[in-house]
């Protein structure tokens, strides 16, 4: 059972590249790896918790009122994440901005709750939330890395927001940031990089 969730989450039903459900934060925050990881981890957390809190009550939720109820649960969980990030790392909170609260409206969370957790037992739902989140996080990291290197000439920029000030040395400056290909750091760059990733995925699928 778990094998299927791994395969779906990481490749076959990848949230970022196949279902294209997490586009808003995927495109907006991935200016560097740090933002990608932070948003990815926050999404994993929300998806796991929302899946396991909705799966047990799935038989008691009336069909007609299910969406508001799901959204309420998700909103509660997102608020926890939002406040925690604010408390743990203020600079990271400022960098991610509106996109943490926006995880609520992130279609991927609601989609998994609706499509999986409301139809399956709790443990598979937990796996589903986790691996869907991991799949999205990988996409966010790759996008962040590409846009950071091409647009800004850095790798692991602002990584100390995530793991503490003493790790600031991890940031690598590959070339002078003023020589960067600015387009990559701007929104069109996100679209182009994402479409390149989808192209790659389709190519691999076609070869099989």
């Amino acid at each position, binding site marked *: 059972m778990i094998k299927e969730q791994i395969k779906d989450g990481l490749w076959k039903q990848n949230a970022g590249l196949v279902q294209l459900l997490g586009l808003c934060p995927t495109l907006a925050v991935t200016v560097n790896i740090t933002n990608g990881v932070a948003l990815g981890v926050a999404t994993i957390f929300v998806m796991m918790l929302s899946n396991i809190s909705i799966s047990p009550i799935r038989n008691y939720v009336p069909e007609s009122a299910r969406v508001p109820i799901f959204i309420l649960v998700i909103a509660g969980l997102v608020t926890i994440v939002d406040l925690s990030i604010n408390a743990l790392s203020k600079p990271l909170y400022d960098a991610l901005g509106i996109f943490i609260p926006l995880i609520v409206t992130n279609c991927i969370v609601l989609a998994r709750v609706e499509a999986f957790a409301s139809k399956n037992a709790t443990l598979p739902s937990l796996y589903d939330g986790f691996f869907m989140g991991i799949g999205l996080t990988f996409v966010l990291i790759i996008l962040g890395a590409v846009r950071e290197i091409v647009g800004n000439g850095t790798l692991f920029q602002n990584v100390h927001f995530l793991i503490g000030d003493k790790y600031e040395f991890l940031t690598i400056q590959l070339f002078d940031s*003023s020589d960067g*290909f*600015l*387009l990559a750091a*701007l929104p069109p760059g996100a679209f*182009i990089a994402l479409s390149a990733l989808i192209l790659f995925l389709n190519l691999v699928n076609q070869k099989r």
Partner: protein
Amino acid sequence: MAIIDSPAIKERSTVSMLMFTVILGLLPALFLQIGFFGYQILGNLFIGIGFALLMEAICLKLRNYPIRPFILDGSAFVAAWLLIISVPANIPIWTLLIGIFFSIVVAKHAYGGIGSNPFNPAMIGYAVLLISFPKIMTNWPISDGFEIRNFIQFSQFFSISNINETYDAIVSATPLDQIKTSLFLGKEVNVLPISFSILSPYQMIAMFYFIGGLFLVYKKVITWHLPLSLILSIYIFSGLLHLYDQNTYMSPLFHLLNGATFLAAFFIITDPVSSPTTLKGKIIFGILIGLITVIIRNYGGYPDGIAFAVIFMNICVPLIEKFTQPKVFGYE
């Protein structure tokens, strides 16, 4: 017996003939540009167009299209040419190649090749370069005047190095850019050290685009609707602003002669693929591009806005065409 379709009198008019005439129209301005700035532009054209044709061939190969007829239609040739004359001649060659890559591979072939591209390929390449490398794209070479020796110095042909680093003194912003900076610093326009009594090199080149454009209209490669509506629109809208406040807004003539007004009016917005086909649509298209250009030039962050205006209006073309369909005879 062969059955002939209705226009029984046929002129030898193919896409490649069309593109050849467009290039003919561009030649006078190129001649002037070499006279003012030397052979560097020719080197750019040589390398840039070669790269564009290479990219075109690779894309056609990947998409399983026949390479020869599509290369010979000259559309990639013209797109690359338009992009190269839109950017400063002293641009580092790798930057130029990035622009050409975006215009041929991304803007043209990723959208389905000639006939299917919604955006003007040359302008996409230009916009990518402008927002990615603003420093390079706003440093234009300064001319010492039209000199015959510029035609003899073949050594300039392939000066690939980035001129900005070695000769700081010979590049400057364009007049549009200077005005913008001066206004930003709070100076009044009429005290600017720019003389309008004689035409600057860039304004002369603009006049030659005008002449080349008239040649295209004469040859019936383009109709007058698009250029005239764009030129009039820029003239009227910038004129209104100039009447409103003469110290802040430049005269309409200044807006016509500077920036890419004439180049865009005759050569860029007339791209048959990405502009409307209906007559009313063409006029609306030209007027709105002019309006957006005036707005960007006066209020926006970039010195010239034609590229963005063209790209923006390109997406509106299906809408414009939907509302300007001519009535079919015999129907209500």
